């Protein structure tokens, strides 16, 4: 039984509910997000609209406040966990309803590195933005990346590293792509705490992405550029 003053999500109109879901996502309330997603679906919202208007809209606010130093990693993780709950409901429905696909990304943490929080956030935000994401997990060799890129016919390679000692492996992967003559076939995005713009340029990546929101915007921009040049 709800206490007096509790918000009953099902009693809110659509606009109020989406606004409340933004707040619940911000506060990392997974069960409330799952309930909100189910209510919107029952109201015949398209799964893609629930994803973009409610979940991604909310995570965009979380991302902006993280960037501005208002929110910190623990809060972002809780929000991401809440979004994951919503995504779990939506994912099979998105596949059934043929939601638009912006592009396909293969993503993974580099060899020698087991850190996956940043990578997971990027993967989730990319999915939210309409990209198909193939997550290779942690500790990936150059062969694992290249096999996946070919097998999945991907547009984008995303590499993540948290350690100063493992980030140089990104160059090994890019150099191998150059040797094999396939570098120009893919957009290469890199990220991770010890990386910076200079490092991204030095190793020959297309872009360094400082956070998940930047990764999404950069990926969209590069995919559009690639399509434009292909059509020119």
């Amino acid at each position, binding site marked *: 039984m709800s206490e007096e003053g509790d918000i009953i999500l099902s009693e809110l109109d659509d606009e109020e509910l989406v606004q409340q879901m933004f707040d619940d996502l911000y506060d990392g309330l997974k069960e409330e997000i799952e309930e909100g997603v189910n209510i919107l679906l029952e109201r015949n919202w398209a799964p893609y609209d629930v994803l973009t208007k409610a979940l991604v809209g909310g995570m965009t606010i979380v991302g902006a406040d993280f960037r501005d130093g208002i929110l910190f990693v623990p809060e972002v*993780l809780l929000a991401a966990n809440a979004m994951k709950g919503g995504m779990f409901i939506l994912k099979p429905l998105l596949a059934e309803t043929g939601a638009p696909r912006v592009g396909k990304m293969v993503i993974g943490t580099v060899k020698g590195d*087991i850190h996956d929080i940043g990578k997971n956030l990027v993967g989730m935000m990319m999915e939210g933005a309409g990209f198909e994401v193939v997550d290779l997990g942690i500790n990936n060799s150059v062969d694992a990346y290249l096999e996946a890129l070919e097998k999945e016919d991907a547009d984008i390679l995303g590499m993540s590293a948290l*350690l100063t*000692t493992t*980030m140089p492996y990104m160059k090994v992967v890019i150099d191998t792509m150059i040797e094999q003559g396939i570098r120009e076939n893919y957009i290469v995005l890199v990220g991770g705490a010890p990386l910076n713009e200079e490092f991204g340029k030095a190793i020959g990546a297309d872009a360094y992405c400082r956070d998940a929101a930047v990764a999404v915007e950069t990926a969209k921009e590069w995919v559009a550029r690639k399509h434009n040049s292909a059509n020119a």
Partner: protein
Amino acid sequence: MSLSDTQLASEGLPLTSKQGKILIIACGALAREIIDLKQANGWTHMDLTCLPANYHLFPDKITDAVRQSVAKHRHDYDDIFIAYADCGTGGLLQAACAELGVQMIAGPHCYSFFEGNDRFAETSADEITTFYLTDFLVRQFDAFVIKPMGLDRHPELRDMYFGNYEKLVYQAQTDDPALTQKAQTCAERLGLAFERRYTGYGDLKTALKQL
């Protein structure tokens, strides 16, 4: 000298008086170790000042802070040595030191130079699921691990952070049974196996000895 870990974490260690010819600008997490080495070896030609150890949590602050400290003190000393390794600066600290004409400790981080950079480089590939703590980090475990990761408020996040780790290695700089006990408790709190590995001061001593 009375040192407070809390103060070393948040404020660092100010330079009290100029006595030596060489200034060591160090991470606050190394203050006790460097003071111990100075006293044990009679290195009176060195003075020490430390930047806040909590820059460990915000590595992007380290390079600028080192630059400012070098600029502040360089006219008072014959030489300045930076007692930091790369420490998550992604090569920016090394580049700044080269530009400023000062030396720093080789290696990626203190876990590496305490163990000895060569040995760490040989073994680290087999230890990618290892989480390291030093004496300082064991003493300051709550301030440097639990609180910044939000585990005090949200213990359910533990496996998101540490789910891929298997073992906690306590790199002991000193023989302190109480600290070892605390390190073991840290491992239990993170759900990791525990190993104590005595390192002493490793390459920190080697680097300072050459000055």
